[in-house]
């Protein structure tokens, strides 16, 4: 009963957020609409990352490789493969699913520390390939010339396109999180050993989470490629991975919308500061150090997790 009410409340909240975001685009100047589009895309990326970090308790240190896989497979299918937007979109999703399946299988061969190491390792590997294989990926300069869907080519209408796409993804993710499947993954975070005693195949669960999370990150990547009208190696860099983790950390890992809030903060900081200094990586490093030492709970973190605990107690 309480849970159903809570869910209804969250549906209402979601509707209000979407309405507010739709109205915002009508009143904001173009520059801010574009920024808000980026916030929405990065929020999707951060939420997909939080599937692993917050819900399954894994340490995916190189999640930008899936954002980058989306960006690059879409961009390359579109420009080099000469596909139309829709088949390129589908093809990019397919490639991302296969790649995250393979990478996930390899990363999950060892313990959690090996997972973290390998995740980072594959991120560096893909980044290096993208940077070195200049004839195919354009190297450091990237590839330009990706177009947006015909109806949504200007800034404002593209914003609505992204808002719709991200909302659909959020609804899907929300449904997934409320499913019994996700309860198991939360168990993974809390006590892996006990789940193993229950005879649950942990690896398989982690792999499914891994693929789902990679898939949503790839969707974010495809939207990002459309927004920037091109593909760039920064989309697959370690800095982006760390940005994603900071979004989860700042916003709060144990709440569904926390990472999105974090995404807004991180994207705005990076955009605003980039007009003054050209040292985003170092600044991000300082933010990471400061947050990890002084601000581990996140904005929505503590409150929400307590709420959930008390709710479950009422349920029992």
């Amino acid at each position, binding site marked *: 009963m309480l849970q159903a009410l809570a869910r209804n409340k969250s549906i209402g909240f979601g509707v209000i957020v979407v309405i507010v975001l739709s109205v915002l685009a009508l009143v904001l100047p173009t520059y801010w609409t574009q920024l808000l589009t980026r916030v929405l895309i990065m929020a999707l990326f951060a939420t997909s990352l939080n599937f692993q*970090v917050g819900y399954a308790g894994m340490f995916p240190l190189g999640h930008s490789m899936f954002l980058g896989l989306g960006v690059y497979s879409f961009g390359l299918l579109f420009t080099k493969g000469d596909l139309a937007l829709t088949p390129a979109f589908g093809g990019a999703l397919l490639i991302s699913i296969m790649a995250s399946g393979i990478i996930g299988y390899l990363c999950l061969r*060892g313990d959690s520390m090996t997972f973290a190491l390998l995740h980072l390792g594959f991120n560096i590997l893909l980044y290096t390939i993208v940077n070195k294989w200049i004839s195919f990926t354009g190297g450091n300069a990237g590839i330009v010339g990706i177009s947006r869907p015909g109806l949504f080519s200007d800034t404002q209408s593209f914003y609505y396109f992204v808002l719709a796409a991200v909302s659909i993804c959020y609804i899907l993710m929300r449904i997934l999180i409320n499913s019994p499947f996700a309860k198991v993954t939360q168990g993974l975070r809390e006590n892996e050993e006990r789940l193993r005693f229950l005879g649950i195949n942990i690896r398989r669960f982690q792999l499914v989470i891994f693929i789902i999370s990679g898939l949503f990150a790839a969707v974010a990547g495809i939207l990002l490629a459309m927004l920037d009208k091109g593909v760039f190696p920064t989309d697959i860099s370690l800095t982006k991975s760390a940005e994603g983790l900071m979004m989860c950390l700042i916003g709060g890992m144990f709440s569904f919308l926390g990472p999105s809030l974090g995404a807004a903060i991180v994207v705005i900081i990076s955009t605003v500061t980039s007009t003054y200094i050209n*040292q985003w990586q170092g600044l991000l490093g300082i933010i990471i150090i400061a947050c990890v030492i002084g601000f581990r709970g996140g904005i929505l973190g503590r409150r929400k997790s307590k709420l959930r605990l008390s709710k479950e107690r009422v349920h029992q």
Partner: protein
Amino acid sequence: MELIGLFRQLLIGISSGMVIFLMAAGVSLVFSGMNIINFGQGAFFILGAFLCFSIVNVLNLWWALILAPLVVAILGGLTEFLLRPLYGKSILYQLLLTMGVAFVMVDGMQAIWGKSIRTIPGPAFLSSTLPFLGLDFPTYYIFILIISGLVALGLWLMFEKTKLGMLFRAIISDREMVGNLGINVALLFNVMFMFGVWLSGMAGVLMAPIIGIDAQMALQVLFTLIVVLVIGGLKSMRGAFFAAVILGITNALGSMLLPWFYTLIPATLMIIVLLIKPEGLFGKPEE
């Protein structure tokens, strides 16, 4: 002719493998003792190389070999202070912190030494080749081999024969017990971290005259370290040694025999090991 080239590449492979081993030994030591992977190790390596560049301009390589790793180690000690509030917390925070430190260092180094690639002229007495058994070997690689061999030997002796080594071994096998014996674990952690980073600085100085020094290279170095750790097994020093030497040799031979595939060799090796023996060649299987 082919054979001579093969021997030369073998020498280059073994000596660069030894340098990689120094770095990997640092990571492995810190991981076994403190359960932290130091993602800054690649950045500390580059810092060692850059410091070597600056010191060679004023003094010479010998001074660089002493001073540069020392400065790097002190910075490592400061990094350990940042880690202190995080012991006992989720590993994620500790990993993120070392990553943040690496980011700050890479940007800092670019601010200090610029974004262009720096090179150091090798010392004159080491730039020739050494005839041996009718073959010519590049002297600098022999120099690297000797120095890194000495450091590795020193590392082993320190571990087996000195009190500090004994404490290191003790803290690896039972941290709590060491604390109960009234030994200052916090200080020991600091020394351990500094030592691990010192090894990386040493490696950086040794490689400085034969690479183009570029702050962005920290990533590639880190990747090589990850490959070595995964192949050798995370906590095994012996594994790190064999993995580093194997990697060095396959890299050197690969650059001669399979130039087009050269950059993917480490990753391929790692994936093969993962598929066959996920805990690493010398790692203990999970309980």
